[in-house]
């Protein structure tokens, strides 16, 4: 089905649904196919554990399906992905309020003790390094670097002004770069040796 609808944008899909050419279930399935990976990536990198990420991810899509906005097909002037992110973010914040976030520093150090760092391992380290960031820096960093959103879009989702968001993203990048600098250098050296 995704192949069938892939050539239509979100707006056209909703238009088709309004004209009864496709059902709401088909519409939801197509939107899930389009955005589930990005939403899950957001959950995974903003939250601490995979289990938390899965819980929030599942709850977010179910909330989206049950939302009045989806059921009334009110997406003429709204980005579906933006709306999904707002739902996910609210679920995330609720989840964080009810759970205590613990970072196991030992796990982190064990991961960093190995002297040879393949890129795969470095990817794991990034997710671990993200956990050191405060949520107000981590979230805009994830939205910018992972989701590819503009500063304006991030500012709209988070509800801050653009310059604040820009500053937070840059500081987050600086912080993560500082944490990962030795390992990035190591990776660069390995790349040169392999070349």
């Amino acid at each position, binding site marked *: 089905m*995704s192949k069938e609808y892939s050539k239509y944008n979100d707006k056209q899909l909703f238009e088709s649904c309004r004209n009864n050419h496709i059902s709401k279930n088909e519409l939801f*399935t197509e939107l899930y196919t389009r955005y589930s990976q990005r939403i*899950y990536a957001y959950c995974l990198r903003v939250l601490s554990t995979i289990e938390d990420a899965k819980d929030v*991810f599942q709850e977010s899509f*179910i909330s989206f399906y049950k939302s009045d906005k989806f059921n009334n097909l009110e997406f003429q002037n709204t980005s579906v992905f933006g709306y999904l992110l707002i739902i996910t973010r609210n679920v995330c914040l609720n989840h964080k309020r009810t759970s205590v976030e613990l970072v196991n520093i030992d796990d982190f150090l064990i991961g960093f003790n190995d002297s040879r760092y393949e890129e*795969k391992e470095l990817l794991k380290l990034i*997710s671990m390094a993200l956990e050191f960031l405060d949520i107000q820096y981590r979230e805009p960093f994830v939205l910018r*670097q992972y989701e*590819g959103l503009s500063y304006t879009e991030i500012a709209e989702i988070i509800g801050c002004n653009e310059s604040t968001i820009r500053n937070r993203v840059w500081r987050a990048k600086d912080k993560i770069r500082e944490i990962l600098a030795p390992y990035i250098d190591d990776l*660069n050296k390995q790349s040169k040796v392999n070349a």
Partner: protein
Amino acid sequence: MNYNDLIHQFLDGELDSLKEDILFSNLSNNTEIREMFKQQVQLHLLTQNDMASITTPSESTNYIFSNLGLSVPPAEKPAPVAPIPPSLFEKHILSHYNKYLTTALTAIISVALTSMFFLLYQSDFTNSNINTASVIKQNQNNYNYPVSTNFETSAKNNDLASSNNSNESKNPNNDKQNIKYIYLNSNTQNNDNNSQIFAENQNQKDNSNIIKNSTEESFVLASSSIPNKNIKQNKLGSNNVNNNPLSIYTIDLNSLGQFQGNETNLTLQWRNITSRSGNVPENLPSAQEPLFINQGIALIYKLDDNNSFGIEIGQEHFLQQFVRKIGEQDYIYTQNPVLFWYGGFYKLSLPSIGYKNIIVPYAQVFAGGTTAGMIGRGQLGIQYNYDNFLKFYVAGELSSLFYNVQNKINRTDKFGITYGLSLSY
């Protein structure tokens, strides 16, 4: 100045050119800033790779869809991920790509149009509707080049031209309107090389007699403007030639039908490509639709009647279908990008099995590159030679694009028809 923020601005694509210059001059001088820059770029790439490695857990998909009472969608392809920004080198190339392409196309079109202008201007001398020519004037010491006049002009005009020089020859039959022959002064010992005739006969002092004694209206033409094939040696009586040891060539204007330029070796070719891939959906939309698409421009050098070489550039849709492994799961990707391609080709023409050198079969092989990978093509077709200047082509074409995805070479084949035309110089 905070160079760290300049790096961030640069990576965000928001740095103006002045600050960019400042940043890059510091990057070249300051090791610390350079290291910082490299780390930021590396971090940028790592986050993109991290994003690509994240997959939606199937148990979560099952949970959501079963909870909502929907059937679980097949895991055919992943949801689109945020576009991976190009590397700095790619960014640099891409930023100049459109500019270079536009410049190259403008240059090619300008050269073609300029050449056509001069070619057509020259062709006026050989066309049946000739209306201008150069009249060679002589005086006692040397040849005077040229005074323009009109072949089908009135006596008045000829007189006007003649009056410009008192030593100029007078044509006794200038009231005739239709000219059948034009006589060209030439040295008998250099019949075949009439472009050098005048220079070699500068000691001839009374060539104007040729014109004076001619029984038909005649003009002396600048020989270099007349193709050899349109010149016939005319053995007129000795009366016409006087004592001048020059042979006389006759140009039969009636024999000049359509334009016949000199055979040339350099050809500019344009073609349209209508080939398509057989194994992927044909109606897949492309992310970009540039103006110059499914077309190619080639420059061909002809070695001889059979062998030619050339270079060609163009842009074309290439539907791609490949498997990409993300995490533990394989995903089938289908995309339809527009690729810029370039390369060289060899063309084998077989006029011996064609029809009177007008319809010529040919085969062509092409090898080159694209922004995605290597490309190879084969063509079998026919060429219609309208004349030496203009040719038309139609051919069957098979193209193969080879591209690398996760260290696996994939191939897309396209087949179809290509057609076009070429202009020779």
